[in-house]
């Protein structure tokens, strides 16, 4: 019984770690898409940020500087996306694809030129990355059965970015639903013309939304290379930007439901790792690939309208052309 509990708690623990970049990236996507800009470049921005963070951390020796570098690079790519799609009214999907491909190529080319290790960054030392924090009171809590285990294994022992991700969700909710910026953001995604008529700049609002997205996406990427892992490796995002996008759709562009989707997808991933090669009585061995692909399958099924309906912001994907 205790063993089962521990396994369960450890699986949830792993799920939290895997969910963190998904949460951050999907919140980034939420800002972009709520403002009317499709952001399939999440993957590329995360990857570029992961590379920048690891490079800066290894050269300058501090994870905080690494985090900053990641955020700056990710914001830069966000602004490029804005320049192409807002200023020049280019296709948002094409621009996103370009960002993804550019990030995939540049991270390797620059890594090779700077560090000469086949595109990897050097492994970070202890001081150069974020570490797990022990929350206070573990010893006291340990005396309480169940809760003690949960507190020690599940709640305590994560790095600062994991906690940040979970704190950010209510903040995002508050910004989107309770502030003037949030109201305008939602309005510009639904009906930019109305926003324009009210005398607000659609362009500025969308750039702002992309910038916020850039910051969050940058944190997500930095988490991968300087907190969850200790170096940048080739294509280390491995589709997580797209899973975040799927979570955003699955969560219907609402912060808390998106969070649940991220946790679900993170949990599936943790389960897939646990179930590798395990034979379940009566069912046999479940192919890991099946569990791995569940987020994509679920999203497709949702999009097909079989479980609820995912209605995107009305004007998402449409460049706003002001009438002359």
């Amino acid at each position, binding site marked *: 019984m205790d063993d089962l509990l521990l396994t369960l708690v450890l699986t949830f623990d792993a799920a939290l770690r895997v969910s963190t970049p998904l949460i951050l990236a999907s919140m980034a996507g939420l800002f972009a898409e709520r403002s009317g800009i499709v952001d399939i470049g999440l993957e590329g921005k995360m990857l570029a940020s992961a590379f920048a963070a690891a490079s800066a951390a290894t050269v300058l020796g501090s994870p905080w500087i690494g985090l900053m570098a990641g955020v700056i690079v990710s914001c830069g790519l966000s602004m490029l996306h804005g320049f192409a799609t807002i200023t020049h009214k280019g296709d948002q999907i094409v621009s996103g694809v370009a960002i993804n491909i550019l990030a995939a*190529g540049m991270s390797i080319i620059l890594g090779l030129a700077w560090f000469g290790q086949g*595109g990897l960054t050097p492994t970070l030392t202890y001081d150069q990355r974020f570490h797990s924090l022990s929350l206070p009171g573990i010893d006291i809590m340990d005396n309480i059965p169940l809760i003690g285990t949960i507190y020690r294994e599940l709640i305590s022992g994560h790095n600062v970015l994991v906690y940040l991700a979970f704190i950010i969700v209510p903040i995002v909710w508050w910004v989107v639903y309770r502030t003037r910026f949030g109201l305008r953001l939602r309005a510009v995604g639904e009906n930019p013309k109305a926003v324009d008529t009210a005398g607000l700049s659609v362009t500025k609002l969308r750039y702002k939304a992309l910038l916020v997205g850039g910051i969050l996406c940058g944190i997500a990427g930095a988490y991968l290379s300087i907190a969850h892992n200790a170096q940048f490796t080739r294509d280390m995002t491995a589709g997580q930007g797209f899973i975040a996008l799927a979570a955003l759709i699955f969560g219907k562009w609402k912060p808390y439901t998106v969070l649940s989707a991220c946790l679900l997808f993170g949990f599936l991933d943790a389960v897939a790792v646990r179930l590798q090669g395990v034979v379940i009585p009566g069912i046999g061995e479940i192919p890991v*690939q099946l569990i791995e692909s569940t987020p994509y399958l679920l999203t497709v099924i949702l999009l097909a309208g079989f479980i609820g309906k995912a209605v995107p912001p009305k004007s998402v994907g449409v460049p706003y052309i002001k009438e002359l």
Partner: protein
Amino acid sequence: MNRDTRINWINRLILPVLNVLTAFAATAIIFVIIGVDPIEAAEILLYGAFGYQEGLGYTLYYATNFIFTGLAVAVAFNAGLFNIGGEGQAYIGGLGTALIIFAIDPNTSAWIFIPASILGGLLFGALWALVPAYLQAYRGSHIVITTIMFNFLASSLMVYMLVNVLREPGNMSPESQLFPQNSWFPFIHDLSTNFGFVMEESPLNVSLFVALFFAVIVWILIWHTRLGYSLRATGLNSEAAIYAGIKPKRIILITMCISGALAGLVGINELVGYQHRIIMDFHFGYGFGGIAVALMGRNHPIGIIIAALLFGVLYQGGAELAFELSNISRDIVVVMQGLIILFCGALQYMYKPWVINALAPIQKES
């Protein structure tokens, strides 16, 4: 020149050339940043791609893949659809090809094998595009998102198939047994020997002719058939198309199937033409490359063939570059792809106001 033809010329010729030049200039800057002389790099690249027969063979071999995926993306673009799923369709198309080849008796003549393997690729590629197409047409879900999801689903499915089903017994790496020899597409260097020319060996095979054949078919289909007309009408204005008696939903289904089918042919060049077995990730990068090729080739088969050739040059020349210079890898080609998609796609009208201004005085004089 009246105003319309002038705009037409700007859109068709001046802007694309400027955009491609910008992408090249940006690449040159990246070369300088990483400490490689761009001129020297260009020389190595061109030598690798054209300098000797084997290099040229590789160039055309890579170009073949890009023709298939470029056509796939272009057909969808012409109907106003963005098929970002070429990657998955190519992968699953290869599966179809392999399954059909293994299903046929190994002693069957090549004349049966060749059309059958092509058909397998077409069919499976089309099927993999059909579901996203159906969801777009009848359930209102966005094709870009569903095709992205299908890329990942394809990848998971193929890992499962290669590891658990198709893997050759006793082989540690996830690849199937060799295809029966009768099914192999002839290499160009073997064919040329039959005609008395001796050529250096390269993976170039008759798939190139299949690709060119399909380029012609696509050209006829889109610009010279009723279906092509409906397809373009749907792309330009699907609501107006309804009043012309066109059913956009059906057109979406048909277009996506054609698009997926074309992408599904990457497998014949890679697998039947060269590897002679199905392997992991043989399709990698060609689906996304097809987007760059279609954008650069302005969605027209002739443009696509030229752009595919350029990408073939980049792929093969990039390999040469990585071989010659230690501080650069083949990923520089990926960077160029990204830049081309950025400047020829997302920023394609960036120079337009500037060009129109620059041409205004000439206009007044004439």
